[in-house]
């Protein structure tokens, strides 16, 4: 028992890769290993990167890795891409942008598919963070799928969430619609050489200025980068460090930790609830009641109430 956890703790990357796959399958043995590893964690700094498709998320991750490695910090990345809702297959392509770190022992990249999870992440992202943290990585970066306006799960898992925007992705109104803008701890306008970037950054600053102050006292910076040229990355890393310092203040630590635990719990609960729901609605749980709806002697509202009564 705990053999995989022991191997992961010695830095065995094969075991780490295998354990993430087992966590994705929710194998009972893996959950025990994760429990052991969880007790060894709590040291890594966690960064989430989210933003619309094509904003340059993977390229920014690549540039951040370069910058952190110059400071001799080790970096693990969980890069999430969507699974096909039809075939369940996926093409996980984020790694292509991070190839210059392929030979670096201080960098580990794991590609993950969403496998039906909503919210822009894989259900096992929290588990991957637990594993990387226990292995002793200094920095853990989570890259979400290209988000729309409701994929906000990254927030709980990471203490610094970067929202990546470009001037190319729609007009000002898109930027202030409810959703991902509200979850950002830092906003970055990437591809800053594109026309309209300065205007976009100015507009975002003004929008933030008009909002009420955050309860945690953090002021959201708006930065500009050209990630493919490593431009603006040093300033972004400085801002990330300030964010970590802010979270490290006495009264903030427990809030951040609590939020991370809640996000992890929610991800785990989602899996349980989803499989429970699927079993309930499959027809096997109450064949007679199903048949009654099919023959219109009953109705979906009544059936739903009957099925979920069992859960309360």
């Amino acid at each position, binding site marked *: 028992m705990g053999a995989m956890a022991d191997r992961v703790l010695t830095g065995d*990357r*094969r075991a*780490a*890769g*295998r354990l*993430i*796959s087992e966590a*994705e*399958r*929710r*194998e009972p043995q893996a959950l025990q290993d994760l429990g052991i590893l969880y007790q060894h964690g709590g040291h890594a700094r966690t960064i989430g990167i989210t933003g619309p498709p094509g904003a340059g998320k993977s390229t920014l991750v690549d540039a951040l890795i370069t910058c952190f490695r110059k400071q001799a910090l080790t970096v693990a990345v969980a890069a999430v891409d969507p*699974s*096909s809702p*039809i*075939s*369940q*297959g*996926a*093409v*996980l*392509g984020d*790694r*292509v942008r991070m*190839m210059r770190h*392929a*030979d670096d022992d201080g960098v*580990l*990249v*794991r*590609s993950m*598919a969403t*496998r*039906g999870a909503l919210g822009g992440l894989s259900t096992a992202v929290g588990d991957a963070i637990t594993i990387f943290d226990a292995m002793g990585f200094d920095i853990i970066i989570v890259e979400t799928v290209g988000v729309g306006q409701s994929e906000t799960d990254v927030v709980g898992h990471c203490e610094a969430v970067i929202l990546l925007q470009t001037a190319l992705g729609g007009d000002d109104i898109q930027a202030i619609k409810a959703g991902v803008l509200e979850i950002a701890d830092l906003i970055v306008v990437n591809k800053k050489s594109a026309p309209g970037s300065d205007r976009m950054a100015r507009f975002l600053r003004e929008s933030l200025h008009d909002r009420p102050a955050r309860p945690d006292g953090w002021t959201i910076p708006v930065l500009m980068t050209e990630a493919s040229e490593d431009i603006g990355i040093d300033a972004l890393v400085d801002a990330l460090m300030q964010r970590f310092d802010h979270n490290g203040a006495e009264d903030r630590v427990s809030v951040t930790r609590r939020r991370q635990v809640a996000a992890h719990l929610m991800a785990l609960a989602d899996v349980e609830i989803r*499989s429970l729901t*699927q*079993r309930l*609605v*499959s*027809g*096997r749980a109450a064949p007679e009641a*199903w*048949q009654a709806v*099919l023959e219109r002697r009953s109705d979906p509202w009544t059936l739903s109430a009957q099925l979920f009564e069992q859960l309360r």
Partner: protein
Amino acid sequence: MQTETQETPAGNSQPVRCLLGMLGTDVHSKGIRTIAQLLRDAGIEVIYLGEHNSVKGMARAAVDEDADLVGLSFSSAAYVTYTRQLIEEMNRIGAGDIPVMLGGIIHPDDHAELRTMGVRGIFGAGSTTDEIVAFVQSMGRSR
């Protein structure tokens, strides 16, 4: 009449994870991109590495990504050398059990040597997409 909604497989099933990439200076990526989409549509999780990978980087990726198999595409003549180097590197880092398959322009005269090295699947110009998908599917968690 269909009365049951589809139930997801319980817990322990997982899509096959297949690393796909090209080694060295080979740049003809059209074939490998086509295969990536084909495998995705067949329910495979493709970890796409694209072109210009190093032997060390690709072996490392196979480990970090917990790949069920590694697929290489070649359109240059150096495939025997590159494949040998990759398999040696995978053995060196303890990933020798991960199967390797080759696609692209592979001369029949080289098949025996590649098989001896440990290459599990070879898919040249005459291979059908069904053959490739069936082989990749068979490399799943049973190994």
